[in-house]
């Protein structure tokens, strides 16, 4: 039992720090550069992302292992996962609007962006590829979400300061954001080899 728990913990740490989605797997970059200008939006986005990632990891695990594997239609995984995520986003959009309009007002726009985001789709695809168990899939979803949140918050706090800095004209805006991300990624390579799974 305890070794099982250690493994889950290792999975979360590895997904969030060592194989950080943004800095070593390069996923979710559009959103990463799009919403990291302000701290407030970055925090809102991170919460929504982590929640959706875990729920979609759970749903797609059930569909993949209980329906697609027995029917031998695993090659349809992309189409099915996209469908699950789009449906899920629509569902949570509707539920949130009815149950908590305040939260919907704050996080609603991010929800719409999520359905076409690579980072959300990558979680079920990696889960299916690595043949994780149900609990492991959840842990992987949580770890990836936390890692994305960490990346967004670091980036947002740097970019808020960067607004005041004097940047050479051709580097203004995105190019500078890329260079900054490169430097953070360099720091994150220090985590590699922390845990060998």
């Amino acid at each position, binding site marked *: 039992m305890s070794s099982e728990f250690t493994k889950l913990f290792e999975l979360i740490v590895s997904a969030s720090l060592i194989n950080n989605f943004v*800095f*070593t*797997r*390069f*996923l*979710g*970059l*559009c959103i990463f*550069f799009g919403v990291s200008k302000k701290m407030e939006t970055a925090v809102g986005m991170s919460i929504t992302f982590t929640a959706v990632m875990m729920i979609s990891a759970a749903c797609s695990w059930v569909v993949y292992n209980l329906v697609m594997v027995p029917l031998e239609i695993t*090659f*349809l*995984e*992309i*189409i099915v996962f*996209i469908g699950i995520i*789009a449906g899920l986003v629509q569902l949570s959009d509707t539920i949130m609007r009815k149950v908590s309009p305040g939260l919907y007002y704050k996080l609603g726009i991010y929800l719409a962006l999520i359905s*076409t*985001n*690579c980072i*959300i*789709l*990558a979680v079920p*695809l*990696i889960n299916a*590829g690595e043949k994780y168990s149900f609990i492991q899939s959840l842990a992987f979803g949580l770890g990836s979400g936390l890692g994305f949140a960490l990346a967004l918050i670091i980036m947002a706090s740097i970019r808020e300061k960067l607004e005041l800095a004097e940047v*050479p*004209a*051709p*580097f*203004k805006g*995105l*190019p*500078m*954001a*890329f*260079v900054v*991300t*490169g*430097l953070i*990624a*360099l720091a*994150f*390579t220090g985590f590699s080899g922390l845990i060998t799974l």
Partner: protein
Amino acid sequence: MSSSSNTNLKELVLNGIVKENTIFKLALSLCPSIAVTNSLKNGIYMGLAVLFVQVMVNLTISLMRNIIHPKVRLPIFMLVISGWVTVTQLLMAAFVPDVYAKVGLYIALIVAFASILARAEMFASKNSFLPSMADGLGMGIGFLFALTTISFFRELLGKGSLTVPTGLATQHVFTFINTKPLLIMILPAGGFLAVGILMALFNWINARQAAKAASH
């Protein structure tokens, strides 16, 4: 008449390569631009995959545009895109398994490319199939161009060599530098740095051209 429509098609292709280059200008679909560009070969194959998907999606959507109900168009676009991505994925797994082993995940994630959905929604669903194909071709070539440029610099500086695919399964490795190369360029961090610097270069060239045009 035919000559004017020809120049239009040419303009459509050029638009995607220069004016609206997906990566350098619109800053969309960035994920693979860094993830797969640590070798020239992977960059080229990824670019070709995107080119194929973009053209086929545009073609399919423009042929079907009259029978798709506008209310359900987005789910249908997604279905068309994921169908073509699955085709690409299976083709690559069969013909270039060594490349597929490295970039497979990113091939699957072409589904989530904002640029492909955007072209389907903004262009192919409103135009007939010839302009749609030209548009897809331009966008795809622009993407291929960007990936090739990035991976060219990264592999050259990071490994000191270039891997050029000469056929489906064959390749040729050119070695230029025999001393210790800049390892950072093939690390994740180098990808971000390379894209940032290339973007700045694009901006700089544009600014200079604009200044020249203004002084004339």
